[in-house]
């Protein structure tokens, strides 16, 4: 790993594009993404800064576009239009992208916003329901209620957004597996095209984690978490949403292409404060500060504050770790190619051992996690980090 010159070279045409809008109505207690309260911030100034960064380095004709955050739907309609029009003028994404997603929260997704998004080129929205339990929503620090979540879903449908996804979190403290099944069934009854269902993570630096460390909240027992994990797969499958990744489920053809690219260890460019990029084998991150980001772009300085280039063996390990998250797994040869390696596969021995242990299986030239290996994806992925070069024959 070495630190490289943060390059502002424009990535190849077609490279997926991510845009980070760091504003939220309120900070959720479990969230470790970079976000700040919208109030008191110059949202228009931020849109201009992002467009300035896009002018400098956004790829032409991106295959996919993803507006994340933060809460992109929080932007007033006029600003949303300015952002999407501006991006299209700079990249031509409306004509090129197979998929354009915007993350939305129930409190800010109404019919008008949904129409503005649709007119701006967005084809897919992902709505952060998170929970159907008022007490859980409260503990998460969410500013919407359950009815608003259902209303937002209906608005997206009525506006005619082609693909609608729902985000849920299970294993919240105190949540029983039976309650989770009920909630999930209600969400599936809406008929979403896509579902992301995450086990709650106690991320360092979040309020939830602090509370847990102080013993004020108890994570659910492992048995319960595992039961919810399996129930999710069962119920989603029954509703025609197949698991294509650890926490993601989709109707046929509705997989999130933008995210699949992450798991295939593909390139992408991120715009906005704290956005990450992966271009020409270099991973970099923009400054994690609204003011810092605007100041740098205003002064024509690079917004990137850290970057690393992985050695081929490390890239190979990373490719396996990420790729095994996909239900389809990965082809060993494709992983070698991503890492820029030829010759004997340094991962072959590890694969063989884990197949022997019943954690991986081979199918049609691909390698994937078994039923037992799936909930151990990190433990399995760890085995691929720190690979050694195979001994010369």
């Amino acid at each position: 790993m070495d630190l490289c010159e943060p390059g502002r070279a424009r990535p190849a045409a077609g490279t997926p594009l991510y845009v980070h809008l760091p504003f939220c109505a309120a900070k959720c207690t479990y969230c470790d993404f970079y976000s700040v309260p919208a109030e008191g911030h110059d949202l228009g100034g931020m849109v201009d800064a992002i467009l300035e960064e896009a002018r400098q380095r956004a790829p032409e004709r991106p295959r996919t576009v993803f507006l994340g955050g933060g809460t992109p739907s929080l932007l007033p309609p006029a600003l949303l239009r300015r952002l999407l029009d501006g991006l299209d003028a700079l990249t031509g994404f409306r004509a090129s992208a197979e998929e354009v997603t915007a993350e939305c929260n129930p409190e800010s997704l109404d019919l008008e916003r949904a129409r503005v998004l649709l007119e701006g080129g967005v084809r897919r929205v992902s709505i952060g329901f998170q929970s159907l339990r008022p007490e859980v929503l409260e503990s998460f620090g969410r500013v919407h209620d359950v009815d608003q979540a259902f209303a937002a879903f209906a608005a997206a449908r009525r506006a005619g957004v082609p693909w609608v996804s729902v985000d849920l979190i299970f294993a919240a403290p105190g949540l029983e597996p039976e309650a989770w099944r009920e909630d999930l069934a209600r969400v599936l009854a809406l008929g979403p095209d896509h579902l992301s269902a995450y086990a709650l993570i106690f991320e360092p630096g979040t309020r939830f984690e602090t509370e847990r460390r102080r013993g004020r909240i108890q994570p659910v027992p492992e048995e319960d978490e595992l039961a919810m994990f399996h129930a999710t797969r069962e119920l989603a499958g029954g509703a025609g949403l197949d698991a294509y990744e650890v926490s993601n489920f989709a109707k046929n053809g509705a997989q999130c292409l933008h995210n699949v690219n992450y798991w295939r260890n593909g390139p992408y460019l991120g715009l906005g404060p704290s956005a990450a990029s992966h271009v020409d084998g270099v991973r970099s991150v923009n400054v994690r500060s609204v003011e810092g980001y605007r100041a740098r772009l205003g002064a024509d300085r690079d917004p990137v504050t850290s970057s690393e280039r992985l050695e081929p063996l490390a890239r190979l390990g990373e490719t396996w770790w990420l790729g095994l998250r996909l239900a389809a797994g990965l082809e060993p040869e494709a992983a070698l190619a991503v890492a820029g390696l030829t010759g004997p596969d340094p991962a072959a021995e590890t694969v063989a051992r884990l197949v022997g242990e019943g954690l991986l299986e081979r199918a049609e030239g691909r390698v994937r996690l078994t039923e037992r290996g799936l909930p151990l994806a990190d433990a399995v992925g760890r085995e691929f980090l720190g690979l050694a070069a195979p001994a010369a024959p």
Partner: protein
Amino acid sequence: MVDIQHIRNFAIIAHIDHGKSTLADRFLEVTGAVQRRDLKAQMLDDMELERERGITIKARAVTIYHEVGGQRYELNLIDTPGHVDFNYEVQKSLQACEGSILLVDSSQGVEAQTVANAYLAIEADHALVPVLNKTDLPHSHADEVCEEIENVLGIDATEAHRVSAKTGAGVPAVLDSVVAEIPPPEGDPDAPLQALIFDAVYDEYRGIIVYLRVFNGTIRKGDSIRMMGTGKVYEAIEIGRFAPKMAKDLSLAAGEVGYFISNIKRLGDVVIGDTMTHHKAPAAGMLPGYAPPQHMVYADFYPTSPGDYELLREALETLSLSDSSFSFAPVTSDALGFGFRCGFLGLLHMEIVQQRLEREHDLDMIQTAPTVTYRIRMADGTEQDISSPGALPSPDKFEQVLEPIARVGMLVPSEYIGAMMQIANDHRGVFVRQEYLSPTRVQLVYDVPMAEIIYDFYDKLKSATRGYGTLNYEITGYHADELVKLRILVNNKEVDALSSIVHRSQAETRGRAAIKKLRKEIPRHMFEVRLQAAVGSRIIAREAIAALRKDVTAKCYGGDITRKRKLLEKQKAGKRRMRQIGNVDIPQKAFLAVLSGDEKKS
């Protein structure tokens, strides 16, 4: 040259924490050897570890000057360690002096180490100057402590000095007594040279610094010196005294204490206790040297990554230059690969060596639980000593296992007698006698297997007496008993480094405790880990560590990849610090914790 009549060589002996180093600091200050502003607390404790833990590990020497009746005297103070483990160092120091200050904390009274060290000094024919310290404290009870000194040690303490080493009150008068009570050394500065090596430290730049006490003759800079024991010859490149920093001088004559440097680099070229003489005009015989140190406790050190074996060897060699009282020899374990079996004076000594290796040499090590030396009486009548449970021959090859027995003296407040007797019984102790030092303090003497002492005897004594009990021991011999090997199996594979030798009657309890601790220390794996304790083929305890069933990051997108990968790498590095036995990762801590009775470590 100082007239030998005006030299005094003395040590300070005390129980740990009775203020020995503070008193030495005060001596340096009142004699002007060190200005107060330059005085770091515990001037003589050079090692970082010594200052940090407030204990003296190595003996140190310093020369100070003190005037009595218009005459200037050269006083050589040799500092001594106070902990039970370092009796050997104390003995070495005492042999270089003619007298000792017996220092007792007047708020605590006579303690086990006070007794042990006083006996060592009496054996060395020392004149003793009793001093009561901390008399400024409100709970000082100097009169009773004087009585204890008289009752226990038979030393007249009516004239004992009452001082506060902290404030310096009464300290100059102690030096007057050193001059008056301790005889000057005997010896002839013109006789053939005989100088005792009583210590040596390794200096990275100057080689070995030899601490010497001249008994006869005079050593001069430039002299050609022969070590009588090893036969090696060196030039006296530099000699001098400690004032308290090393100060060069041209000569050291009979009665004096100082140092000798000759660019000696190699381990083993300097033997503590050896006699130095002139190469050209040697002395007729050697001074009485030292018995080699008696190792009470053994433990194995293995490098965490097998590739660091050579580094560990070099570190042990370097460390043995400044600590001649531990031993090391290569050893191989099925589970842990190549390492070293090290012999120590005691548990504290073991802990200090381990910490010095880690700090001074930045080594990651696995240390096995301490064990003692067992004597095996073979079927053919021969005997052999083993210092590792793994070395126990198969049961048909030997008749008996003998274990070292220590005579243990415990000084405890009388209200704890019952509790202490219970603890001694639980540790297979045999009552020897009981004596009252004063109406409130009792000395209990038991014969206890050394293996029990290193298991958790000391911790139990401390907690049962709320920290007031103190303990001293010496090995008195070997005793045959019903000792069996407690085997530990991890996923059906015996792990020699986790096995131990225990008394048959304790096998079940100890086996269960060991397995319980292992269960806590070994992380969950992707499969079930079975733990068993066995004597012979009989399983006496078993536990299982359930397989890990969930280890997956729910959310992993473009912005998370670097951070999440680094987290996984960190977890993986943690795994690398463990030892893989079969396919089970066992953390370093487990090897030490499994066989120690110390609950804190589990």
